[in-house]
C-alpha cells in the first residue's frame, strides 16, 4: 500500500474564519443597536435605520453571515481531515467564499433600503435568492467532489450531518423563495395567506434545524472529540441521533402557528413531532457532554472546552424548551412575547455562538502553528459572554411572562385590566434595557476575541497548505468481517444523500400538499375582496418598513385576544395576502382588525410621531412617509402580478388601477383636510392609512360561507 502525499487547504479555512468574526461583530453591533432602539425610540432617527428595517438585517446577519461562515469554516477544516483529502476544487472553494460574501454584502445593501420579501429569515429579494441557490449548489458540488475523491472509506457521523444540511437547506430555500418578480428588486410570494404561512414556518423552523443545528452538530461531533482527544461517547447513539433528528425536524414547523388560522390537523402534527424531537436532541447533547467523561478536569484550563460545554448545555436547554413551547398551553403564553426572543438567543448566543468561539480558539492557533496569544483573555471572553447570555435571557423571560399575564388579566367586572396595550409595554421597558446590557457584555467578549485571535495570527504564520499523507482507497472493498448494517450506508455518500432527501421530502410534502388543497382546508369568505390599488401600495409600504417585526396580524381565539382586538382571525381572510403578514412578535399590538378603529387623522399624526397620539409609545416615527411621493408607476405591474397569482381583479384592470388609486387617495386627503391636516393625495402616508383602515373589516357583519 503506497502512501499518497497531499495538502490540506488551510487558507480557505482561515478566510472563512476571518469573515465569521468580522460579520459576527457587525451582526452583534446591529443587534445591540436595535435592542437599544426599543427602550430609546429616539434612536430611530433615520428612515433607513429604523427598527423594522434593521431587525431583519440583524437576524439575517447572525444566521447567514456569522453562523453561515462559521459553518463553512468548520466544515472546510473537518471535512478535509475526515476524508483525508484536499477540497475537491480550490476554484470552487474560492467561488463559494466570494459568492457568499457578495450575498451578505447585497443583503446589507438592500435590507436598510426596505427591499425585502417580507418573510422572516427569508427577507432577501429574488435576485439574491437566486444567487444563494447557485452558491449553495457550488458548495454542495465541492463537498461531494471531496467525498468522492476521499481516502477514508467510511463517512464519519459529522459528514452525514453536513450532507443532510446541504440537501435540506437547498430544498427549503427553493420552496420558500418561490416568488413572482414585479421588478428588479420587488417580488410577491407565489403563496398566499395560510399556505404562505405554512411554507414560511416549514422553512423558518427548518432553517433553525438545518442551518443552525445540523451543521453545528456535525462540528460538535468533530471538534469536541478533537479537543478532548478521545472518541465520541457513543457512536451508536450518534446514528440514532442523526436519523431521528432529520426525520423528526422536518415535520415540526407548524408549532410556530398554534392557535392561528392554520388548519387544526397541521397544528397537531407539528406538536406531536416537536415533542418527539426532545429524544434525539437530548441524545445528541448527552453524547457531546459524555465525551468528556473522565476528562472533566481538562475543562478547567482549556478554554475551548469551556465554550464547548456551555454550547452543548445551551443546545440541551433550547431543545428542551422547544418541545415544551410546542405544547399548546405553553405556546399560548410564549407566542408573540419576549419569551421566544429569550429562547432563540439561548440557541443563537449559547449554542451557535459559543461553539463558534470554541472552534476559533482551537483552530486559529493550529493553522497558524503558534499557541494562543492569551489564554487569560480567552477566559475573560468566556465569562463575560456567559454573563452576557444571562443578562440577555433572564430579563426577556421575565418580560415575556409579565406581558402575557398583563394581556390576559381581567377585572372582576369582566373587562380587560390593561385595555391599553401600551401599559403592558411600558411595564417591561426596564427589561429591554437590561437585555441591551447583556448584549453589550456579549459583544465586549467577542471584541476581546478579535484582539486575541489577531495577535495570535500575527505571532505565527499561516500554514496555507498543510502536508498530509494517506493510502489511496482501494477500488474493491473487501469486508474483513461481517460488519454492522449501518456501515453499508456509511460507505455510500450518494445513497446517504438520497435517503436523507427522501426523508425530508416526504415529511415536507405530506405537510404541505394538503394545505394546498385550498378548497377543503380554507373556507372561503364571500365578503373578502382583493385590496384596492391604493391599499395594495400601502401594504407594500407596510412590508417595506418591516412592520411585521413588531405587529402581528393574527388574532388567536382566546377571550383576552378577541376582547382586545376583535373577532379572531379566519383562514379565508388572507387569501389575497402575498406574502402573509401574520408576524411572530407583538412589541406593538395586533393590527388585524385595525381598520375603522381610529380616524384617518389619528393614523396621520401617529405616523408622523407616535408619541403625540400614544405618549410613551416606543414605535419609530415615520414622518418620511409624509414627505415621500407614492411611486404609482409600479401600480400596473403589481396588479398584473397579482392577477398572475390568481387575485381576481377584472381583466385589463391594470390600466385603470391608478385612476382608482387617486380617487381613493383624494377621499382620504379630503377627510384629513376636515381635521385640519393639509397633505397631498400622492404621499405615501395616504396609502399606508388606506391599508391600515382596510385591515380586517371585510368580515364585519358577514358569515363564513363554509367549505365551498
Amino acid at each position, binding site marked *: 500500500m503506497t502512501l499518497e502525499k497531499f495538502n490540506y487547504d488551510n487558507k480557505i479555512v482561515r478566510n472563512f474564519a476571518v469573515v465569521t468574526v468580522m460579520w459576527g461583530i457587525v451582526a452583534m453591533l446591529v443587534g445591540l443597536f436595535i435592542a437599544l432602539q426599543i427602550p430609546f425610540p429616539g434612536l430611530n432617527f433615520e428612515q433607513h435605520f429604523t427598527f423594522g428595517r434593521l431587525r431583519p438585517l440583524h437576524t439575517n446577519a447572525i444566521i447567514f453571515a456569522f453562523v453561515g461562515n462559521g459553518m463553512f469554516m468548520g466544515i472546510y477544516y*473537518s471535512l478535509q*481531515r*475526515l476524508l483525508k483529502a484536499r477540497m475537491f476544487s480550490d476554484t470552487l472553494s474560492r467561488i463559494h467564499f466570494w459568492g457568499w460574501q457578495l450575498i451578505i454584502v447585497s443583503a446589507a445593501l438592500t435590507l436598510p433600503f426596505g427591499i425585502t420579501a417580507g418573510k422572516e429569515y427569508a427577507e432577501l429579494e429574488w435576485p439574491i435568492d437566486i444567487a444563494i441557490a447557485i452558491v449553495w449548489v457550488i458548495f454542495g458540488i465541492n463537498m461531494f467532489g471531496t467525498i468522492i475523491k476521499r481516502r*477514508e472509506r*467510511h463517512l*464519519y457521523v*459529522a459528514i452525514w450531518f453536513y450532507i443532510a444540511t446541504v440537501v435540506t437547506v437547498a430544498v427549503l430555500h427553493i420552496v420558500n423563495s418561490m416568488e413572482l418578480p414585479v421588478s428588479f428588486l420587488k417580488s410577491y410570494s407565489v403563496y398566499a395567506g395560510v399556505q404562505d404561512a405554512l411554507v414560511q414556518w416549514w422553512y423558518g423552523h427548518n432553517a433553525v434545524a438545518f442551518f443552525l443545528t445540523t451543521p453545528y452538530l456535525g462540528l460538535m*461531533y*468533530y471538534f469536541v*472529540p*478533537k479537543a478532548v*482527544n*478521545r*472518541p*465520541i461517547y*457513543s*457512536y*451508536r447513539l450518534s*446514528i*440514532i441521533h442523526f*436519523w*431521528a433528528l432529520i*426525520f423528526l425536524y422536518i415535520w415540526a414547523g407548524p408549532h410556530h402557528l398554534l392557535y392561528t388560522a392554520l388548519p387544526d*390537523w397541521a397544528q397537531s*402534527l407539528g406538536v406531536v413531532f416537536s415533542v418527539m424531537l426532545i429524544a434525539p436532541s437530548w441524545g445528541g447533547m448527552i453524547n457531546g457532554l459524555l465525551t468528556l467523561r473522565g476528562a472533566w478536569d481538562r475543562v478547567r484550563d482549556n478554554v475551548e472546552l469551556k465554550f464547548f460545554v456551555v454550547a452543548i448545555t445551551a443546545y440541551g436547554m433550547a431543545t428542551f424548551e422547544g418541545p415544551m413551547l410546542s405544547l399548546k398551553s405553553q405556546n399560548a403564553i410564549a407566542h408573540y412575547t419576549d419569551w421566544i426572543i429569550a429562547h432563540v438567543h439561548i440557541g443563537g448566543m449559547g449554542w451557535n455562538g459559543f461553539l463558534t468561539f470554541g472552534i476559533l480558539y482551537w483552530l486559529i*492557533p*493550529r493553522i497558524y502553528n503558534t*499557541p494562543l496569544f492569551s489564554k487569560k483573555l480567552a477566559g475573560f471572553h468566556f465569562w463575560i459572554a456567559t454573563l452576557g447570555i444571562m443578562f440577555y435571557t433572564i430579563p426577556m423571560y421575565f418580560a415575556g411572562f409579565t406581558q402575557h399575564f398583563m394581556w390576559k388579566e381581567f377585572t372582576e367586572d369582566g373587562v380587560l385590566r390593561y385595555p391599553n396595550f401600551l401599559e403592558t409595554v411600558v411595564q417591561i421597558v426596564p427589561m429591554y434595557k437590561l437585555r441591551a446590557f447583556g448584549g453589550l457584555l456579549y459583544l465586549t467578549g467577542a471584541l476581546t476575541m478579535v484582539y486575541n485571535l489577531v495577535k495570535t495570527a500575527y505571532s505565527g504564520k499561516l500554514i496555507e497548505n*498543510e502536508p*498530509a499523507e494517506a493510502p489511496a482507497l482501494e477500488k474493491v472493498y473487501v469486508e474483513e468481517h461481517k*460488519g*454492522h*448494517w*449501518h*456501515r453499508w450506508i*456509511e460507505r455510500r455518500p450518494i445513497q446517504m444523500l438520497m435517503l436523507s432527501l427522501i*426523508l425530508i421530502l*416526504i*415529511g415536507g410534502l*405530506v405537510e404541505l*400538499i*394538503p394545505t*394546498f*388543497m*385550498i*378548497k*377543503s382546508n380554507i373556507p372561503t369568505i364571500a365578503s373578502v375582496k382583493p385590496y384596492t390599488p391604493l391599499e395594495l401600495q400601502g401594504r407594500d409600504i407596510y412590508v417595506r418598513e418591516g412592520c411585521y417585526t413588531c405587529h402581528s396580524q393574527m388574532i388567536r381565539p382566546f377571550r383576552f385576544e378577541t376582547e382586545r382586538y376583535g373577532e379572531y382571525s379566519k383562514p379565508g381572510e388572507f387569501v389575497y395576502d402575498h406574502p402573509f403578514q401574520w408576524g411572530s412578535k407583538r412589541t406593538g399590538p395586533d393590527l388585524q382588525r385595525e381598520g375603522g378603529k381610529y380616524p384617518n387623522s389619528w393614523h396621520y399624526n401617529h405616523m408622523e410621531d407616535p408619541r403625540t397620539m400614544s405618549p410613551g409609545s416606543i414605535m419609530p416615527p415615520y414622518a418620511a412617509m409624509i414627505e415621500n411621493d407614492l411611486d404609482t408607476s409600479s401600480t400596473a405591474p403589481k396588479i398584473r402580478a397579482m392577477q398572475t397569482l390568481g387575485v381576481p381583479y377584472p381583466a385589463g384592470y391594470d390600466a385603470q388601477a391608478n385612476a382608482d388609486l387617486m380617487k381613493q387617495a383624494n377621499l382620504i386627503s379630503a377627510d384629513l383636510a376636515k381635521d385640519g391636516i393639509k397633505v397631498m393625495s400622492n404621499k405615501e402616508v395616504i396609502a399606508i392609512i388606506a391599508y391600515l383602515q382596510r385591515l380586517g373589516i371585510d368580515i364585519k357583519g358577514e358569515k363564513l360561507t363554509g367549505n365551498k
Partner: protein
Amino acid sequence: MYKEVISGIKDISVYPVFSFIVFFAFFSLMTFWVLKSKKNDFDEISKIPLSGNDEQ
C-alpha cells in the same frame, strides 16, 4: 391548476397516516438494529477524527 389536480386525489387524508406509519417503522427498526449492534463494531470509525498530526 396544480391545486385542482391535488384536491382531486381521493382519500388524501390517508397519506399522512400512511407516511407516519412508514416513518415510525423506519425509526423503530433503526433503533432496534442500532441497539442490537455491538459497541466495538464502531470503534475504528469513531476514531477517525482523532487521526492526524495537528496536536498542539
